Each structure stands twice: as structure tokens, then as C-alpha cells.
């Protein structure tokens, strides 16, 4: 069974291009710390083209969180900007990259969006 985080990165890699990141270029490394163990994911963005590697390495931005929180971020249960302000997620390097990649994360699973009432009434 593949966990949420792996699925998220595999999906990005498969997608190959993300229009929301078309103006973004740079390399992010996600360090998921659990006790002495750290899992690394590297995301390379080149004007929206994406490449994912599960490896350590140089990056413009290094994001650090616990694996559980990260799974909740990429699952939409938690919000990355709030996590950053709380100190539950740390960022070293170019913060802008994180704020752009964060927009690719889904919204909360229980969010329904606008309450459309196509009643045909109204004006």
C-alpha cells in the first residue's frame, strides 16, 4: 500500500507539467524527519516542468516537517502557510518556491466549495 506522500510525488512526476507553476523554476528538497530517520524528496521545477527524485541533494529551498504532517498537507487536511507560521514546517532558502508549490496541494477533503442554488428564481 502506497502512502499519501509517495502518491503525491509520484503523481507530480507522472504529470510532468503543472500550469500553476509555469512561472516557477527551482529545486525544492523535502526532508521528512522521524526521529533519527529522514526521508528526502527532491522536486525540480523548470517553468512548470516537474521532475521528482527520492534522494538527498542540493536545493534552492529545503522544507522540513514530520512525515505525518506532510502527508496531511498533501492530503489537504492541513494548510501549509498556517503550518509555516506555526513553526511546524520549516523552510530554508527561497520561501517563494514553497508558496508556489503549496498551491498545488489540494483543499480540505470536507470543503464543498460555493453553495450554488440554481433555483431559477432571482433577478
Amino acid at each position, binding site marked *: 500500500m502506497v502512502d499519501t506522500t509517495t502518491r503525491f510525488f509520484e503523481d507530480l512526476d507522472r504529470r510532468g507539467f503543472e500550469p500553476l507553476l509555469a512561472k516557477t523554476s527551482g529545486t525544492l528538497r523535502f526532508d521528512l524527519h522521524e526521529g533519527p530517520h529522514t526521508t528526502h524528496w527532491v522536486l525540480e521545477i523548470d517553468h512548470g516542468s516537474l521532475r521528482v527524485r527520492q534522494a538527498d541533494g542540493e536545493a534552492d529551498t529545503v522544507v522540513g516537517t514530520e512525515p505525518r504532517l506532510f502527508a496531511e498537507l498533501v492530503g489537504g487536511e492541513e494548510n501549509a502557510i498556517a503550518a509555516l*507560521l506555526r513553526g511546524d514546517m520549516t523552510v530554508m532558502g527561497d520561501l517563494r518556491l514553497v508558496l*508556489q508549490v503549496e498551491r498545488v496541494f489540494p*483543499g480540505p477533503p470536507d470543503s464543498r466549495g460555493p*453553495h450554488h442554488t440554481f433555483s431559477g428564481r432571482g*433577478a
Partner: protein
Amino acid sequence: MPGNNTVRILDGNTFVVSEDTGDIEATPNEPTGLFSLDTRYLSKWVLTVNGERLNALSYDDLQYYEARFFLVPGMATHYVDAKLSIIRERAVGGSFRETLTILNHDEKAVDLQIRMDAGSDFADLFQVKDEILNKKGEHYAEAESDRLRLGYRRGNFRRETIVSADQPARYDQRGFAWSIRLEPNEQWDAVIDVQTFAIGPGGRDLRMGLRAHGTERLALQHDLEEWISRAPKVNSEHDRVAATYRRSLVDLAALRFSPLSLGGQTLPAAGLPWFMTMFGRDSILTCLQVLPFAPEMSKTTLRILAALQGTRFDDFRDEDPGRILHEMRYGETAAFEEQPHSPYYGSVDATPLFVVLLDEYERWSGDGALVKELERECRAALKWIDDYADLLGNGYIWYERRNTDTGLENQCWKDSWDSISYADGTLPPFPRATCEVQGYAYDAKVRAARMAREFWGDPAYADQLERGAAELKRRFNNDWWVADRGFYALALDPDGRQCEVLSSNIGHLLWSGIVDDERAPTIAEHLVGSRLWSGWGVRTLAEGEVRYNPIGYHNGTIWPFDNSFVAWGLRRYGFAEEAATVANGILDAATYFDGRLPEAFGGYRRELTKFPVEYPTACSPQAWSTGAPLLLLRSMLGLEPHEQHLAVDPRLPVGMGRIEVLDIPGRWGRVDAFARGRIDLEELAD
């Protein structure tokens, strides 16, 4: 709110609000303090000499980032015979720095105990007006040999204040002190440094390497001088116009704000001190106001708002794909999601206004590259208007918050709870649709059509947008027109019932161009008629409406920003005299506030009060009040970009005398505009 004798200095979103002695003793009624990142880092900062509080002789706020206080020992008496002078000089620029100077005027030597009590409650900006009782984290204070460390910790959320001084002091958990001896005519100085930290688990500050400009005093001064020298010069026969312009320009500099994510670029924050943050609506409207004078602000504002445009449904944040943000905050309540500002998206006008600003900016600057760069975001914004904002599927922008705990009920600029009502004063149910937002949507479509044709190479999309705009205009003029009273309804309820009240919003409709030509004269008449026009400005709500109150926040007060868009709208439809009337009234009012227009003032008749009665408000200067005189100048001078040149068609009132605006930047390079007052407003009033 702080009383009138508080002193405020700032740099970006670091600011100090203190008493006129320089002391800080925060209470819910006097929310003074040192603030940064929407957090209070000092709530106590009290200087004593030999155990005595100090009395203010005078203070100077030298620049927006520095102030100086002249003090003597003892509380105020009618006769001060001081043998000591104490000068506190302070500046913010990243950190907060205070220089203490003590002078002994006595013929004898004196021994002095100098003490600063220091403490912090680390209140979130949203909490400063409340009694702060139940902070969920823990406070700590650590006295070290060379510094005092004040801190607050809640999980990984940590904020710290570190106080140190260049003169060795004795630090304890409640402050620090010096014992000194001063010979006759001797002087003693100490420099105190207060640094604010937002620390992550790695011990690294959230804001590292993210400053707007140099944080040193000299760098700030240089930055301000450069800002002023880059802007056009305004000369006027009567000094008031030029003086108001200069005041606005300096305040605009103070209101520049560099969000964490922008890497040092700045956009206008909403207001000082409580709204030193990004607001979609306020930042966009301010950019529109100041385009002829400070066009670069528009570029950075558009870029940052585009970079943070909504991408998903998030009901807590009222976020939708394509929606432009309302407000961003950095404090504890945002971090722990007790408030939704990370960021919050609950406004319905920022999104169409984003498109409007991009087009207007290009018409002035010729920066087609930015129009191309932001094509995707513009299309997403237009899709939001048609798909997500049209809650009833009838072609209008509606709002109904999904965050029912902490979201905003009214998501238009008049966002207080009672601002939208029926003629009988009762409040309509949700969703609601306000008129001016439909105007913005119309304007956004018309302007986007131009951009699609000229820059995006998509004439089919342009045609579609134009058809949509024309259809919207036709239906709007049918559904919102209150035939027997001759104006547009303020809002519609979900059953299509009109809120038949006369409001300033109809002026925004002129600005957007959605008003049918044959109805425009009636609208112009209302705007300068006795029910809306007070003599100083156009009231938010007309006299005679049930909820009218001359000091009702959105129900009768006069907002300078609102009036500046009304004047622009009047001018757009050819009502130059009426536009000049509005401009003249507001600029007259500005002289009563030393050129710094408040957020709002009372809707009382001018002949009744003789001077504009300020609405007791939290923020001054406020960005869109600061921008108002600039847009009024534009409207009076009839500045309008046409292809590669700037058209000037001045219509000034007689009393305004001669005005010249030199070096107006744009696609034409730099040009000058000259005008002389010729309109007799007295005649118009008859």
C-alpha cells in the same frame, strides 16, 4: 483605540505605538506596543529615573520611522523646574533601536538610577483590543548577563524579544537598569536594541533575508528621498494642493509593505498601524489611485496577488480557484487557524478589480509583457466571476460566506454587518449581490477583451467577453434600476428583490461604465444632490434613508477613497463640473487634517459643522485615503492615456488656482500637465 496623543513609527509591518513620553503600557483601551509580524513583542516599556516616571515636554515624529521625545523627571505640574533632561530617540528598521541621552543641568553631581521596565504579552494583533487572559502557550523571561530574553512558546510556535544595550546594564526578568553618576553639565548616552524573532524549530527566523529595503536609518532615509524624487512634482498657486500631495507621497512611502513571499518587493498595505498587511481590495484600489504618480506599485501588487491567487476550494478560507485574496496575517491566531487569514479570500471585488488594474496599468505604462505574464491568472479570475461567484446562476456576482464562524458576512468594501439593507432598514438574507461589484465585473470583461485581442492573440475570447459584458450591462440596467426613484439599488437579495436605498455605490457604477448613457445625468444629479452631498463629500448612504447616520461607519459617513472613485466616474461620463465639486470638497476637507485625509469623516452638512468631523478610527494614514488626493488630481486634470500619449483636459474650480504636475511617467516617457481654475462652483450650486 489609542488616544490622539499616541506616537507611531514604523517600517514595513514592524511598528511602535507609544504614549507621548515614549512609554508603552498596553491595555485593551490603549493598545500600545512594539509590533512585528502581527504580534506584540513589547507590551511594557517604561522608563524611570530614580524611581520616578517622566513627563513629556515635547516630541517630534521626525520621519515615519523615527521619533524623538524630550522629557523631564516627575509627573506634569504647572511649573517644571528640571535639573535633568532626558531625550529618547527611537527608530524602527527591522529592529527597534532607542537611544537614551541624559543631561545634568545642575551645578552639583547627581547619582541616578535609570531603569527600563520591559515585558511582553505576545498578543496577536487580533487580540490587542481584548483582555488577554487565556493564552494557550507559555511566557518566559530570561535575564542574561548582557541581555534580556522575553519569549512565548506554543508547540513549535515561538516568538522572542531580545533586549540589549551598548552600556553594560543589570538585567532582571522585568527589565534592566543602570546606576550612573553625572557631573555638572555631563551627558550620558546608551543605545538599546530590541530585536524581534519568529523562530522555527531549527532556531531559524521565519523572515531571514526577506527585508524590503536596508534596515539602517540611513538606508531608510535614502529610500524615502529616492521615492520622492522619482515621483512627479506638483506645484499649485494655493499651497494646500501641493502640501496635500507631498503629505500623501510621504505617507504612501510609509505604507509600502514587503510580504514574506515577495522577496523584497513592496505593495501598499491597507493602513497604519493595525492593517500593515496585504489586503487585496485596498492594495488594488490604492494602486489605481496612484497610477499616474507611482506606477511601479501596480506591477508588484499584481504580481504578488497573482502568485497567491486561489487554486482550490477551502471553505475555512473562503478560497476558490481564481479568487484574489482578501487579507493575509502572520500572527498566532492565523497560525493556529483561530482566524482564517492564511490568507483569507472572502471578498468579491478584489478578483474583478485585479483584471481592471492590470489593464489600466498597461494603458499607462505600456508594459505589455506583464499582461502576457498574467494571462493565465486573468483568465482564472474571469472564470471565477462566471462560475464560482455566480451563486444563483443568473449572471451576477453573489456572496455568502462558507466560514460561518470567522468569515466575513459582507464581502464588498462596505463590510460592516449592517451596511446592506432594504429601504425599510431590515437586512436581506444571503446570498447578496451589491451593485458596484457588478460594475467592476462589467469593466473587467470589457478590459480583458482588449487585452485578449491585443496581447493574448485570442480574438474569439475577446468577442465572448464583450458579448458577456454587453449582456451583463443590459440585464443590470433592467434588474437594478429603481424606476420610481431614479437610481440603482444598492443590492439584490436572492429573490431578486431590490435594496432600494440611495448610496455612494452608484458613483462606482459610473466609474465602471455599466450605467446606460441616458441614465447618467440622473445619477450625477443624485451624487451632488442634497441627500448624498454634504458639502464636503458624497455620503456612503443618503440622508433620509432609514439607516442613515452621519457617523454610521458605512451608513452615512464620507470616505475620501469612495469620493475619489466617484469623481473619476463623474469625469468618465463627462460631468466635469460635478467631478470638480467632489474634488474640491474633499481637498478642502484635507486641509483640516494637515493634508492627511482620515479613513472617514462625518456626513454632517458642511454649513452645520463648518469643519469635517473625523470618524474615530484606528488607522491613519490609511492607504486608500492617502491615494484619494492623487486620484482627485487625475480627475480634475483629466489625465487619460491615449495610445502613446497622455491626454490632459483640465477642469478645475476657480478657487483651485493654477496647478502643474511635472514629469508624469508613462509609455510617453515623462510629460507635464498644467491647469488653471475656471469652473465657478457657486454658479453650479444655484
